[in-house]
Every structure is written in C-alpha cells, then in structure tokens.
C-alpha cells in the first residue's frame, strides 16, 4: 500500500511496545495511523526522524492490518538508534515493496522452512500466513538455527507451533550451553531428522548468506528442484522502487523483483550469496 500522493513520504506509526528477543534483536510493535496491509515476504522501509531509514520484512501476521511488528537486529547506525527507542515515539513506514511468498503455490504441498538467526523474522510472518491455510497444506516443517540458545528468537513460537497439527519445528545452536537439550550444529544438520515427500514439497530458506548458500546446496542434494526452493534475499534495499540501484543483483532489483525469488531465477546470477 504505497502512499499514493508521494511514494517517498512515509505514513506514520506509533511505537507501542518493544520486545527483547535476544541480546541483539528486538521486536517493535507499531500501530500505523491507518490500516496497513502487506503480503508475507514483502518488505517495508522503516524510518526514525532525524536518524534514517532501513528496510525490514515485517514479522507479524499479514492478516492483521491495524498492527505491525518489525524485528530489528542491531547491525549499524540506524538499527542501533532504533534499539534505543521507547514506546510512544512515532516512526515512518514506506511500502510494502516487492514480491512476497507465493503462498498459493504451496497449496497441497509439504513446506520445509530453513531459517537462521534474524532470518526467522520474515519466516514468522510466513508461518502466520501458513497457519491460516493449514487445511490446504500437507505439512509444515520449520528447521531453525541460532548461534547460542540465548540468540534463539521467538522462543514461545516453537512450543505453540508444535501443538498445531501438521506443524513440526526443530532447533539447533552452533554453540552448546548447559541446559540446552535440542540439537547442536549447523541448521542443515537438522535435515537428517526429517522426512519429506520431496516431489510434493517446496522449501523456503531465509537467513545469513552463508546459511542460505549451504542450505540451498543441501536441499539440491536432497533432490529439490531449483524451482522448488524459495529464497528470501535481503540485499540492502533502499528506495524500494527499483530506481536507486543499491540492491541490484545481476539483472534483478531485489526491492522490486524480490525479495523472494526461486533459486532457478537466481542460480546464474553472480555473487548471490554475498
């Protein structure tokens, strides 16, 4: 829902809550001045007056228009300033931009989701969307990896999803800490645990570039076809309109043509994992 008067002018949203997800990650709960709808996987530009603007994929349900949740990892100047914000301030939202997940293509299939670190943010929104169409899906398996147990975000989400018929979740951490009783190792190691009917399945990968690279390689080894693998590419989107060129990746503008691509669309593009 781009502002029709001026595509560069944000709509204002009130920050109503800030949730600590991990030492470096917070979720911002925003109430926009008017209903805001998006398709899961699309991104927005979120701004703070006098500080700047940065792209994020909402982590909340696309079915809810009166409230928006954005999960932000502290990685640079803008996100560091955002982490200092308290409820009550106004933030700007532009968008939504780009192409999200084609949920209709998942109907009648098993959905395997591989997530790493803060990549679980767009995935959470996708999971909410999938939850609303559970009857049209065969099953949904989420494999998620974080550096340590304390870096694992949305902790209550996993227990909740495991209670839903057709949903299974698995977690792993790179670094073991006392008390952790789930898997240890890279997220691809979780794929040894699961059974998928690969012909009737799609896979979604979202996370740090290195995780997406090895995740995709492993999915191909498992027998997934290139057009069965959906990648959520986050490439420094700026204008959101395919004009500025910040997010160019080969022939694609990630902000306009993506951020969700199939691997078959990207496989010949150089440096997709950078």
């Amino acid at each position, binding site marked *: 829902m781009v502002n029709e008067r001026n595509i560069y002018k944000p709509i204002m949203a009130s920050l109503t809550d800030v949730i600590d997800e991990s030492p470096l990650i917070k979720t911002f709960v925003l109430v926009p001045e008017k209903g805001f709808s998006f398709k899961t996987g699309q991104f927005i530009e979120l701004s703070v007056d006098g500080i700047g603007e940065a792209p994020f994929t909402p982590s909340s349900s696309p079915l809810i228009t009166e409230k928006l949740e954005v999960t932000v990892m502290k990685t640079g100047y803008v996100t560091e300033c955002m982490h200092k914000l308290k409820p009550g301030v106004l933030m700007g939202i532009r968008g939504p931009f780009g192409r999200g997940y084609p949920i209709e293509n998942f109907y009648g299939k098993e959905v395997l989701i591989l997530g790493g670190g803060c990549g679980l943010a767009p995935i959470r929104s996708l999971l909410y969307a999938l939850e609303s169409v559970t009857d049209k899906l065969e099953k949904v398996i989420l494999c998620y990896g974080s550096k340590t147990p304390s870096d694992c975000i949305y902790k209550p989400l996993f227990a909740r999803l495991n209670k839903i018929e057709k949903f299974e979740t698995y977690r792993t951490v790179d670094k073991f800490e006392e008390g952790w009783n789930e898997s*240890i190792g890279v997220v*691809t*190691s979780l794929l*040894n*645990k699961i059974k998928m009917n690969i012909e009737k399945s799609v896979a979604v990968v979202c996370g*740090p570039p290195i995780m997406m690279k090895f995740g995709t390689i492993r999915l191909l080894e498992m027998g997934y076809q290139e057009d069965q693998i959906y990648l959520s590419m986050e490439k420094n989107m700026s204008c959101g309109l395919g004009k500025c060129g910040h997010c160019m990746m080969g022939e694609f503008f990630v902000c306009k043509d993506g951020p969700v691509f199939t691997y078959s669309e990207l496989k010949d593009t150089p440096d997709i994992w950078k």
Partner: protein
Amino acid sequence: MKPTSDDLKKIRFFDNYSDKQLDTIVRMSSVKEFRVKEILFEQYDELSEVYVLFEGSLSLGISLAREKRIHLGTIEEGQLFSWSAVFSPFISTAWVMALAPAKVISIDAKKLNKEIEKDCDFGFKTMSKIAQTISRRLSDTRFQLMNQMTL
C-alpha cells in the same frame, strides 16, 4: 544384548539391506546403553566398534584439552558414527557423549570389514552409507567454518 532384525528395520541407516544381510549384521552386533553425560569414546581413542544410534541423543565434539570440550553437533537417531573403526589407523577423530539416555547398535568393526570384503553388495551399501555420513559431516564442517569466518 543382541538386537533383532526387526530392531534394525526400524533404523533408517539399515533401510536397503536385504533380510539376509540384516541377519549378518545382527550376528556381529550388540545393543549398548549409555547414561546422560556418559562418554562413549574419547577423541584419539582406538576404536573397534561402529555405532548406529537407535534411541536418544548424542553430542559429538573435539577437545582442546580433556576439560575443554567443544560440542560440534548432535547425532540423530538412525545415524552412523564412529566410522573411524572401519579405516586404518582406527583412531577416533572426535569424542561422543550422551546428551539424553541413549541406546546404540554396536557393530564389531573387524567382522564388518571382513563382510565388506566378502560380500560386494553388502560392502557397496555399507561403504556408500559411510561415505554419505562423512560427506555430510564434512559439508557441515565447511558450513561451520565459513560461519565462524564471517562472524
């Protein structure tokens, strides 16, 4: 305690062995149980048994010193480990510890090697499965290494 062929049929690792081949494995195997935090073997131990995890959860890692254990990954049910027992110099490259009470199928590595030499089909299946295990572990290690390098 000896496993049965039916036990083996429940384990993914033994998926495509014939009934006769499963009986052969049963003859060279036993079931072993381990308590939480019990060490199955240490890094650099000489190994004489190949294991397949039947039930439970195991952690695999390396040591900088005996006191400083680094957990690298978990072994999931149905996975083979301790493959070093099949190849010279028969020295383990990692330690394995029980994270939860664990039941494993322990296969005599000398007898397994003899069968691999004797029965080509059995040998091909077994070596393919071991190669897959090592390949996956190598791939995971590369991923871990790249992950560390990009932190």
